[in-house]
Every structure is written in C-alpha cells, then in structure tokens.
C-alpha cells in the first residue's frame, strides 16, 4: 500500500515522531504498523530516505543501524553539547578493548580462546564489564569438558558503533599468506 501525495507530509510527521520518541532503534516492520492500513516496507523506506534528506542540514540526523532506524546527534555538535554536561563516558582499558576485538572478529569464542590469543589470563571483570554494557552475550556452550561459554557480540554493540552489520566492522589488518607457511631457511 502506497500513499497519495496529499498524505505524505502527515506520514512523515508521524514517522519522525515515532523515531524521536523511541528509546531504541525502530525497524521498518514496526514503522509500517503506524499506518492504517499498513504501508508497504518500500513506501516506509522511501519516506525515511526523504526525511533523512530533510534533516541533512541540522544538528541531529537519521541513521540506519543494526536494529533499525534512529535519530542521533551529529558528532560535530556532540562536542559542544558535552560542554554543557561535564560527565565523561567511561574509557575502557586495553584488556577490555582487546577482549572485545577478539570476540567481535573471532566469535563465537570461549574465554580459553581469548586467553590463547592474548597470551594472558582474562579477568572475569573484563567479561562482566562487556556483558553489563550489553556488548557481548553467551551464545551457547562448547561441548568439551567444563562446557565453556561461547561469547559473541550483540546488536547493541553494532548500534552503539553506528554499524548495520558485523560486515561493516573495519577489516582486520591484512597479512601475507606466507606467514603461516614460512619459507624454510
């Protein structure tokens, strides 16, 4: 179901209000239900793209992330907004960020796998920090003695990093093939 031209402004207003008032990204499927009768997914997507254009010159923008569409502030304005509120976001230690990188690029992995790659023990607090932030979760257990938990990253991580899928993660540094098969001296 598509819209007659006369109803487009009202439809955009409604979409805008829905995105602005949702605490989490909203999917196209959810947005379709705003309308009676329901709009087609394509029609909703077209309206979203038009809205995206209209908001272009402003301080907040419409973006598409892993769990749907949302409004967010443009980074250039965020610095100024931060002046208002001296509260600083936490900065994570290298241990936390390296653990996150291993889980993101090598998932699903167990704690043992992470320790193998980093060459040191992984403190429980590191994994708990990432879990509390909602960035990693237990996907299952590896069926070996001890049934260690298998960790993977969540849609929240992608949302928080402005990504639509794991494929959008920056690629790992490229390595030449002969690393695993070094030439014999």
């Amino acid at each position, binding site marked *: 179901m598509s819209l007659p031209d006369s109803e487009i402004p009202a439809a955009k207003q409604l979409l805008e209000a829905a995105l602005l*008032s949702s605490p989490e990204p909203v999917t196209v499927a959810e947005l379709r239900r705003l309308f009676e009768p329901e709009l087609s997914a394509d029609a909703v997507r077209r309206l979203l793209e038009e809205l995206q254009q209209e908001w272009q010159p402003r301080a907040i923008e419409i973006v598409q992330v892993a769990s749907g569409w949302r409004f967010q*502030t443009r*980074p250039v304005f965020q610095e100024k907004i931060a002046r208002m509120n001296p*509260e600083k976001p936490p900065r994570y230690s290298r241990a936390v960020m390296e653990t996150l990188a291993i889980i993101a690029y090598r998932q699903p992995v167990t704690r043992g796998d992470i320790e193998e*790659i*980093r060459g040191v023990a992984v403190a429980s607090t590191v994994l708990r920090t990432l879990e*509390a932030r909602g960035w990693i979760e237990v996907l299952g257990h590896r069926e070996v003695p001890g049934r260690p938990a298998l960790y993977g990253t969540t849609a929240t991580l992608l949302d928080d990093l*402005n990504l639509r899928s794991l494929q959008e993660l920056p690629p790992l*540094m490229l*390595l030449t093939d002969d690393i695993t098969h070094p030439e014999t001296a």
Partner: protein
Amino acid sequence: MNDAADLLEVPLAQPIARVRGEPFIGLPQDLYIPPEALEVFLDSFEGPLDLLLYLIRKNSLDILDIPMAELTRQYMEYVDAMRHGRLELAAEYLVMAAVLIEIKSRMLLPRPVAAPADEGLDPRAELMRRLLEYERIKQAAATLEALPRAGREFAVVQVWMDENLNQRLPQVTAHELQEAWAQVLSRARVNQHHRISREQLSVRDHMTRILRRLREQHFVVFHELFEEGVTVPVAVVHFIAVLELVKESMIRVSQSEAYAPLYLSLAENTMELPS
C-alpha cells in the same frame, strides 16, 4: 603502531612514573629500567606477547625472520628485572621465556639427515603466527576504540513521552537493576569526586527493616530488635545497622536514666519515653 608510544595510553608529554621525584617520561631508551619504575612500566604491557611485539618493533626486527638469540636475550633481561619486583606477575612471562629458549635451541641443533615429517618447519612458525594474530587484534582493538561510539561521539535522541499514556507498565528484571547500578558505578568512578564504597547490602537491608518497624511501632525497646533464635551473624548485622542509622541521624536512641532500657525511635518523632 610501530611507535612504542602507541603501546601506552599515557601521552608522552606526561611522565609515566616518578622516580625519586624525577619525572620518568616515556619508555626507556635502553633496557635499563629503574627498579622503582618497573611496576608502572610493566603495567603498560598486556602480557608476554605484547612485550615481545614491543621488543621486535623497537629494534625494527622483521617479525617474519626473528633473530631468536637477540630477542631471547632482551626478553630475559626484562623477565629478570621483573622477577625482582613482581614475582606473581612473572608466571606467564616465564612460560614464554621457556618457549623462546626452546625455539632458540632447536634452531641451533643440526638437522637430522633422515627427514622427519615436520622437516622444513621453522621452529619459529608457531610463535610468529601468535605474534601476528595478537598484533592484528591489538590493532583491531585500537580501531574499535576509535570508532564513533554512542554516548561519546554522538548521542541517541529520545524525546519524552508521557508514561501515563502507556497502559502497560514497563517490566524490570533484577539483572537490569544490576546493570543500571553498574552504569552508575562506572560513571561515579569517572567523576572522581563521588566516593562510593562497597558496602554489605545486608546492613542496608536491616537499616530499612528497622526504619519500617519504627514507623509502625513508633518506638522499640532495643533488645526487642534481637528476637530469640536470631543467629549471631544476623544480630551483628542488625546491631551495625542500628549504629549506622544513628550515625546518619535517621533514628534516635534514648534512655530515661542509667541502666534503664534503651529505646529506639525515628529521629523525626519526639518520643515520649514510657515511664
């Protein structure tokens, strides 16, 4: 990433340690580490692989053709220095030392004439693979850290909606409550001026129970708080809760004369002691 400074989160302009009051800026140029700075210095490495990578990059060595003798010598100097100060830290580093020495000795041995199955395999291969994998992850971590992040480089927009219009009430789980608390804590840690001590929850729980009881009964004789059959740990927690309530001016303890019973009441009530 070749720059040693990238290994540290400390900007080079700032001293990473003070030794006898003198600022100690950046990483040491040679292998001599003042013992007082060693602890700070080691904290900047994430483990033996990280230290090896640092040595390789600092000396512009080829990671695909590591001169084992030199690398092992330098590594051992660090580990020796480390063992003086932080013995408990050294275990993972000692394992790596053993691996390095094993590789070195295998490279010194003449190859057997009869070719075994693994002939041609460089003894350094496994170490190189691990170093490269770790270096990749290290770089990926730095890249992830640099990505714009919600709450840091940008904020998610959420406009206020009247909750009364929502017929359905939000559901909350204990786990979500814990997460909210963790968020509070991590932010409080950033705002250094807020000191939040870890405290036994049970004391807080008992404080609430006493307040609730006092609100209903107006005053309570002190010993009645400790009913029969109460275990010693519970009584102690209860007693601490009373002391804490008094300290925080939430309740009042009074006595009409020496050796008379103690009475507890809410601080807000002007209590008439029973005669």
